[in-house]
């Protein structure tokens, strides 16, 4: 007969010996799986793989295996699938707005203990705006890495050509319209150069709403709040439509990738785009590129941050989490994250990075690199830091598309979007 007590004893013995063996081989390196997306142009995947190779070369006990998973959405999908299947990666770069979804999935751990530990991190050195999406329940869940805000890019040669001062970009919405009109070039019925091109995207639209006076997302720690049908949001969307009606911006939806292409080709004199596109635009534009704050609305300047942070996953062994922390700490060293800023165009998210080389000399040489950093003074938390954020992004973008293609009025489109966003929140357990 099968003896249960004996079986348990054997099991204990087995586990003990397994532990013993584990201890003996503690010198075996831990291999970490690291998921990362690339959100902007350029051979950034190569840059990251290069950093990881350097980390691996200098760390005997940790080997990091980078996995490039596509754009932000694909990366998050991949990570979610892995978490749900119980086989998460060890460390991942995911959007700041995904924080609540990840907490809800019980997929990540808070990092406060690591930050406060001996091998910690001076978290106050990171810019406040870039920490806004990283904190929930008074705990820090992620460390900023590839962070950005949109800025205004303009073609200085085109400004000079139409008699505008290349050193004075538009500072207000009205000036944007006015300058835009002057910059438009027509060939018969066909416009060969547009005044301004604003990509049809929730992430760009959010800035206009802030400039009009009310962010479409929550500024505090509330995963259930979306403010799409406010008068300010409506005004912002109506302004985007007005740019088209005044013949300053191309009609229809404008794809995210089309705007930089048009800018480089001289088909758009000004574009709104991520600061992360800076390096590529500087390298490829056959004219002088100016950068500026996004023009101010009634409520002044305003910007919505964005981009990816490092998260450490929950369902992995504590020593793997420790190793992941060591990797993150290495990656966000001031020199390292400054180099990353130069390679990519992302805003190095901590003060110290700007005070040492290589970034210090680079910023002195390329003044455009600092625009986004100074704009941070007006920057707030990224939208939509809620449950189901990825879906609410799409819902919001669809509303903007409906208005930019002339299908719906701003009021109607935003009312529909608000209702759909609420539905997503309720499905995720919010009480509205």
């Amino acid at each position: 007969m099968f003896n249960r007590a004996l079986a348990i004893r054997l099991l204990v013995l087995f586990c003990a010996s397994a532990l013993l063996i584990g201890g003996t081989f503690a010198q075996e390196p831990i291999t970490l799986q690291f998921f990362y997306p690339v959100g902007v142009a350029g051979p950034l995947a190569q840059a990251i793989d290069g950093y990881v190779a350097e980390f691996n070369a200098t760390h005997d006990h940790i080997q990091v295996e980078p996995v490039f998973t596509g754009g932000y959405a694909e990366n998050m999908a991949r990570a979610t699938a892995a978490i749900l299947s119980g086989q998460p990666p060890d460390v991942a770069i995911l959007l700041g707005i995904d924080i609540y979804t990840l907490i809800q999935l019980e997929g990540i751990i808070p990092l406060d203990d690591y930050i406060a530990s001996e091998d910690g991190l001076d978290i106050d050195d990171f810019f406040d705006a870039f920490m806004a999406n990283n904190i929930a329940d008074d705990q820090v869940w992620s460390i900023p890495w590839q962070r950005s805000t949109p800025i205004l890019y303009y073609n200085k040669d085109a400004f000079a050509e139409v008699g505008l001062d290349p050193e004075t970009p538009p500072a207000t919405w009205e000036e944007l319209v006015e300058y835009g009109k002057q910059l438009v070039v027509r060939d018969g019925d066909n416009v060969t150069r547009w005044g301004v091109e604003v990509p049809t995207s929730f992430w760009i639209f959010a800035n206009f709403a802030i400039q009009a006076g009310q962010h479409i997302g929550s500024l505090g720690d509330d995963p259930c709040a979306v403010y799409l049908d406010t008068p300010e949001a409506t005004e912002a969307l109506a302004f985007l439509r007005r740019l088209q009606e005044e013949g300053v911006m191309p009609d229809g939806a404008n794809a995210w990738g089309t705007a930089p292409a048009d800018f480089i080709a001289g088909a758009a004199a000004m574009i709104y785009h991520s600061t992360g596109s800076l390096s590529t635009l500087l390298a490829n534009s056959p004219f002088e590129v100016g950068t500026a704050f996004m023009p101010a609305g009634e409520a002044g300047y305003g910007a919505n941050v964005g981009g990816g942070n490092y998260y450490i996953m929950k369902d992995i062994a504590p020593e793997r989490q420790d190793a992941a922390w060591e990797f993150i700490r290495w990656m966000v060293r001031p020199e390292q994250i400054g180099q990353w800023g130069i390679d990519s165009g992302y805003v190095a998210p901590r003060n110290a990075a700007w005070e040492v080389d290589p970034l210090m000399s680079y910023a002195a040489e390329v003044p455009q690199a600092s625009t986004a950093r100074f704009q941070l003074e007006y920057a707030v938390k990224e939208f939509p830091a809620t449950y189901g954020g990825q879906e609410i992004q799409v819902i919001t973008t669809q509303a903007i598309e409906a208005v930019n293609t002339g299908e719906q009025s701003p009021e109607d489109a935003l009312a529909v979007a608000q209702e759909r966003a609420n539905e997503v929140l309720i499905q995720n357990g919010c009480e509205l």
Partner: protein
Amino acid sequence: MSSPRSLALPSIVRSSGAVAYLFLLPSLVFLAVFTLWPIVSVIWGSLHARRGRSQIFVGMDNFERIFSDPFSQQVILNTVGYVTLSLLMSVFGGLLLAILMNQGLKNIGFFRFPFLATIAMPMVSVASIWLFMYSPRVGLLNDILGGLGLPRSNWLSDPDLALPGLFVVYLWKQLGYFSLFYLAALQSLPDDVLEAATLDGVTFWQKLRHIIWPLVSPTTYFVSTIGVLNSLQQVDHVFVLTQGGPNNATSLALYYVYEQGFKWFKTGIASAMTVILLAVLLTMAILQFVYLERRVHYQ
């Protein structure tokens, strides 16, 4: 006959029945796990919804949501429109191209190459090519239209043009495929049927309507079946070109499954849409069965 030892069967499987089961085993295992089981599990999934890490039973709720939400209604309409267009294309476009290919010289492989080449290319490549064709300000299509003095369009960003735009991509890739079946049918027709008609001075349209069309009707039936099956499975170009936009105008059923199931992990909704697709496929299979029965009956 040489009988290498490696082909020796175990002695238990002497009877032809046992051999048959042994031969079928590999296929049956994979059929069971990757065709039958998923049908069962997707039906189960369609009755549940994910909450955090767990699944809760919600009855027909997912289906009600799909049929009541205007955006998923639009997905269904998009799909129906797309499938209908592709049905027309596969039948009429395929037949006309086949007639053209079947004229005169028999050995004109060189002229057929363009239409065959596109069939064989990955849809992802084809879609990337068209991304550049459609690009509003630097794309070739608008350049050509502008050169001809025609209005330019923002092809993939205009809700009225985006779905037809996707369809053109599919057409470009697959027209040759459907015409192949008609070409084979035409070539199997006796030469004198077509030639006699030409000599009698009938017009092309009369010939098409009264002679060719009835003669190729079995092919038409076959082509429409695979045309529908094929177009229902199209998703790669949506992924590369529009991601379902603008404003949901190009979201097709399978892309919807991808978006709901794999981007947002609303597995219940995605399963329900899969079940709807399965129902459509099943209906088609039944229609096919009835049609074949009838043909056998009347022959």
